[in-house]
C-alpha cells in the first residue's frame, strides 16, 4: 500500500479547495493509499501493451 503523509494530503486538499474541517487528512490519506494500490494493480494488465493497444478508439470504443 502506498502511504501518503497526511500533511501532504492536507496540502492537496487545500490546493483542491477542500479546506473544510469535514475532510480529515488522515482518513483521506488511508483511503488514497487503498485506491492507489487498486490502480497500481492495473500495471499487470497494461504491461507489454503497445501505445496503440491502450489509447486507440474503434467502433467498439466510443
Amino acid at each position, binding site marked *: 500500500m502506498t502511504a501518503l503523509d497526511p500533511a501532504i494530503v492536507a496540502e492537496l486538499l487545500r490546493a*483542491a479547495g477542500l479546506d473544510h474541517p*469535514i475532510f480529515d487528512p488522515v482518513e483521506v490519506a488511508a*483511503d488514497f493509499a487503498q*485506491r492507489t494500490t487498486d*490502480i497500481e494493480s*492495473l500495471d499487470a*494488465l497494461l504491461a507489454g501493451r503497445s501505445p496503440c493497444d491502450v*489509447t486507440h478508439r474503434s467502433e*467498439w470504443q466510443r
Partner: protein
Amino acid sequence: MTGGLLDSAQALRSGSTTSVALTEASLTAIERLDDELKAFVLVDAAAALEAGRQADLELDAGRDLGPLMGIGVGIKDIVDVAGLPTRCGSTTYPAGPVRSDASVVSRLRAGGAVIIGKTTAHELACGVYSAPARNPWATDRIPGGSSGGSGAAVAAGFVPVAIGSDTGGSVRIPASLCGVVGLKPTYGRVSRAGVEPLSWSLDHIGPLASDVNTAAAALGVIAGRDDSDPTTTTTGIDFTDALDRGVEGLRLGVMEGAPFEPLQPDVAGAVGQAVEILADLGAVPVRVMIPELRHTLTAEFGIVGPEAAQYHRDRLRQMPEQIDPGIRALLVAGSISPAAHYLKALEARRVLTDAIREAFYASELDALVSPTLPATAARPDQENFEYGDTTEAVTLSYVRTTAPFNLSGLPAISVPCGFDSSGLPIGMQIAGRPFDEAMVLRIAAAYERAGAWTTVVPPIHSTRIQQ
C-alpha cells in the same frame, strides 16, 4: 409484469380506453401504494392529466405520434423536466423548477407520452440503494440503484416504462432486483443532454420497462441524433422489427470466471436454466472467459472518481456535509488523485474493451450472456454479501457484472429469468455488439416468450388494488 405497452396501445387505438383513464389509473395506484414504495419523489398529476387529454384529442383527430402516445412514463430525478425540480436524491440541489426539458424528455413528449412524475434516485446517481425507495417484491429489500425508483415504479405497475441512467449498472441493477426489463443502450444511442452526469464517459440513458417489447418501443422513441450531445448518432431505427425472429443459430457467449463469479447458488441455477431454454430454442451456447475483465471494478472506479469529482467540485467544496460520506470519499479521492491514475484507468478500459471484442470475433458470437447480478435484492442496512468463504460489499457485487458494458459502451439488457428461494427476482444480462440493440432485444424477447416471467406480478402491484 402485466400492464405492458401493447395492451394499452391497442386499447387506446380501439377506443376501449383513453389516455386520461390510463393516467388516472396510474395516479390512483401511486396514491394508494407509493407510501410504502417511495418510487416517486414527485408526481405532477395536473400536468399528466392535461397531457392525457391532449393525447386523447390527437388520437381522436387521427394523429398517431407513436407507440408511447398516451402512455404514462416515469422520469428518474436526475433528468430535467421543465417546471419540476431536479434533485438527484440530494439536498445540495435547488428545490426550484428547471426551465427546460432534457432531450430525452422532449423526445418522449414529441411521441405523445404522458410524464407522470420524477422517480427516486440514489444520491447523485452514485449508489445502488436508492433510499427511501423499496422493492415491490419485498418491502424489506432495496430496489437497487441508482434508478431504483424507476425499477420499483415499473415493477409495481405504476407505469409501463420509466427512464433511468446507467454509469456502472444503474438501469440493469434495479431491473434485475425488481423483476423488470432494463436496457442500457450503446454509448451515443440516447442523448444525455439535460441529465445530471455522474461520469460523463460512462453515463448512458435507457428505459426500464414491463417487458421487452415496451423497452424496444421506448428506445425507438428516445434514441437518435441530438445536437446538444455530440456523442449521439443515427436516428430512425425501429427496435421492435426483429423481436419475433427467434434465436435459431445465434451463438451466445456464456460468461464464466471473474467478474461473473462468485454467484449466489439460486442465481447460478436460474441463469443456467435460462441458457438451456435459449439452447432449446436453437441458440448455440459457447463458454467464454475474458480474464482481463477481472480488472473491471478498478477501471470503473478509477474513471468514475475523477470525472464525478470534476463535475461536482463546487458541490464538494461548498456543501460537503450534505453529501453521503461514502460518496464524499469517492469525490475527494477523485479530486486529489494524480492524472496518471485516471489515465491508467482509461488505458485499462481500452484493453478490456478490446478483450470483449476479441471474444466476439474469436468465437463468432452474436451476444454475451451472464447473470445481470451475482445476488438478489439486499436489505437496506446490508453492507456485504457472503459467497461461501468470500465477503464482498453489496455495491461492488452489484456493479462488477454490469460495469464491463459501461466501460466498453456496448448495449446490454437485463431480462427477468426467475426467483430465488425467498421469492426475489433474478435477471439475465444479454450484451451485444456496438449499436446492435436489435440483437439483444431479439434474444431477450425470445427468452421472455419462453420463460414467461414477466407475467408474474409482485405483492405490491397496481392490479391488486381493491376497486
